[in-house]
């Protein structure tokens, strides 16, 4: 997950009236996720521990400062690193401390290593978490706790996050994914014979709320045209459905890990070709 910028087409009068357009939009997501973190921990104790989450955030920020200065020449804005760190702190479960630091370090470093034409291909925290789930499965598991027993926390989360994501002009991605997930749930239920509600159950948990609002909507690691964003969201859900049929417990993380960079790669290659075609041809001798 990284921070998002308000798209020009998403600016409307109501945002001006409530002062939203006067806020640096890069701070919206960090503020919101911080509120979720504090509320979730105080109400339901859903963190592994405060200290582990703090370790994840501080590592993320430290690595970003170091690499941003080294490779960008200036001190980087830290909102993105903060969100990556907080995501790791919330989504990673481990009785040890080191996986939190390592996952954050991997997430941020990947942004500077796995690049193409100035863009990083993978969503940083998605890459970090997948790496930990694959390479350190004996020590790491993903977030599994819920937000209480009733729908109220979900409704509150959906309300505020929908508001923010809509303001950031990314809600179509979330909506496409959710609709696709529900459709594929019905399909999986028909294929496996398992109850439809059992297939839908995962999306009612908090991990998915973070995933659908902040991870798959990350503007820095998603394609640019709106129709392509909708297509990619659908493809992520489709690949996840296939992985689920093969009983991959971490299907959503793996699906984004596979589809996200592939889509970015295609877009970058097409942009390259377009640039090549548009470039003036050298004059004939």
């Amino acid at each position: 997950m990284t921070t998002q910028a308000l798209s020009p087409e998403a600016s409307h009068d109501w945002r001006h009236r409530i002062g939203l357009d006067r806020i640096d939009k890069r701070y919206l997501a960090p503020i919101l996720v911080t509120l979720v973190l504090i509320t979730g921990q105080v109400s339901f104790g859903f963190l592994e521990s405060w200290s582990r989450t703090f370790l994840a955030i501080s590592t993320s920020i430290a690595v970003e400062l170091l690499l941003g200065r080294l490779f960008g020449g200036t001190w980087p804005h830290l909102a993105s690193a903060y969100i990556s760190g907080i995501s790791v702190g919330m989504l990673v479960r481990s009785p040890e401390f080191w996986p939190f630091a390592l996952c954050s370090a991997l997430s941020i470093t990947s942004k500077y290593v796995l690049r193409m034409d100035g863009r990083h291909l993978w969503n940083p925290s998605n890459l970090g978490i997948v790496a930990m789930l694959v390479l350190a499965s004996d020590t790491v598991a993903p977030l599994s706790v819920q937000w209480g027993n009733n729908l109220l926390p979900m409704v509150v989360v959906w309300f505020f996050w929908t508001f923010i994501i809509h303001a950031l002009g990314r809600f179509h991605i979330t909506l496409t994914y959710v609709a696709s997930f529900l459709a594929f749930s019905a399909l999986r239920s028909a294929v496996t014979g398992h109850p439809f509600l059992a297939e839908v159950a995962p999306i009612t948990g908090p991990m998915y709320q973070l995933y659908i609002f902040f991870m798959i909507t990350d503007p820095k690691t998603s394609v640019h045209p709106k129709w392509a964003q909708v297509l990619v969201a659908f493809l992520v859900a489709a690949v996840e459905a296939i992985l689920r049929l093969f009983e991959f417990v971490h299907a959503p993380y793996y699906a984004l890990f596979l589809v996200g960079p592939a889509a970015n790669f295609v877009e970058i290659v097409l942009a390259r070709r377009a640039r090549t075609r548009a470039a003036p041809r050298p004059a004939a001798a």
Partner: protein
Amino acid sequence: MKRYARLLLAVVFVGLLATPFLMRHLRNRAPADADADPLKQYGFRLTESAKAAGLDFRHEAPTLDPKLAHIMPQVASMGAAVAVVDFDADGYPDLYLTNSKEGSKNRLYRNRGDGTFEDVAQRLGVADLNHPETGVSMGSVWGDYDNDGFEDLLLYRWGRPELLHNDAGQGFTPATEAAGLPPWANVNAAVWLDYDRDGRLDFFLGGYYSERVNLWKLTDTKMMPESFEYARNGGRKYLFRNRGGGRFEEVSERAGLVSRRWTLAAVAADLRGSGYPDLFIANDYGVSELFVNEGGKFREVGKETGVGYAPKSGMNASVGDVLNQGRFALYVSNISEEGILLQGNNLWVPTATESGLPKYENLATAMGVALGGWSFGAQFGDLNNDGFLDLYVANGYVSASKEESYWYDYSKIAGGHEVVISDARNWPPMGTRSLGGYQQKKVWINDGAGRFFDVAPVVGVTDRFDGRSLALADFAGRGVVDVVVANQRGPLLLYRNEVAPGRDYIAFDLEGGCRSEAVPTGCSNRSAIGAQVAVHWNGQQQVQEVSGGSGFCAQNQRRLHFGLGSAALVDKVTIRWPSGKMTELARPETNRVHKLKEPV
């Protein structure tokens, strides 16, 4: 220049990816050497010898309402339980085993004193206790509720709990009606305790499924937990106060013991030095609860003390002075499956006291006892008589197909909302799939410096049954602690212990001063449940307490056994009786059992 920097960064990135392998390598440098002689290296060896001892028990699971057929293996996944009791007061610990299949028989194995056992359950009337009309056994705890010198049987079931009076070791008389026990309660935890210190044993029952649920006659399928972490739709709790004459009154609400969490284990011990037994409850699908006993009234202080924050799947409650500091740590088992769910077991160690309450920190990871698998019963005991309490943990949930796992299905439903998870109809069918099956047990030995190391395979514990309840006892009076393990849908295992020569011990058989023929005044219950013994030797001390049930559906021997290490000289032993009286022994003899009666 920048190009080289990027190249260097790529190398660093690869190094980061390799870090988990390095950490695994470092972690696996455990001291367990598979080829080592365990007697020489760890000071003990365990040999499975149930059949040789005449213990041929095999647990069978019940078949519940057909509406649960699709998930039967995981619903009918408890009931194998063991309690150690000297029911005939001949000085040798006997065994009571519960079975759970409809029509199956419980066993009461009498210890012949020569290392072998005989089943006397049928003859004494405590075998045929599993029927759909009354429910099937989940476990038992024994306590002398009428102070007549013979331990009575409290049998708890998914069904009707039973109290059976022990008639001088010659038979048992039903005492359920007079005691006023509830007609139906799905109980998975029970302990005897004298919560009001009146010299008569009371008892606690902890419900798992709601008492409104009859698992053989379901009215609907909405009987599952409403949440994987925050469920409060489980069974109610009961506290039966002993009024004497075989009569009890249910006082849970009056005493402040109110909860509807899904209780799987409980242990009573004086955690604050108040003289009153506190009650720690491990709950499945939620946080643990600690009820401190303030002069006979309970107050839940889980959050204040630190044990009631992170919700897990509590399945065990046992206490042990793991650091020889004279204070009890609490051990709670949970679920850990690589890459899927890493709750980690909890070792709550008291680190401070604030406003009269102990503050606990979970030191399970730091001390090396966090990752046990799908853990159930656990008990502390000094297995190698080195002076430090070790930890034996039984693992494994449902072992069926070795090729197919239910973990994916389980992870799908476990994260679901209340309306999904609470209805058994929504749970994916289990078929023959395993869930946390075929797991290696943990025998963690305490190095005395704050770390535990797993030596299970090396010392002889290699079974992969679905371990549930386990208890420790010195079955042959050899001055060593043996281990008995009840396995779900599996055989009973008896691990006989052999300790290396030159390691000393001291043990205590305590008897409280109250007698059945007199109204108790200023005396302790005859079972001495709640008595604390502190042994001081070689500049250290260790405290143990006589328990009325601990672990998961289990009860250890009444005797308190202290390992002492080599060439030990005990400076003094202090006994604090439940009545508050104190007894002190100066320089007691080691390598023997001291039989002590509460002074009149």
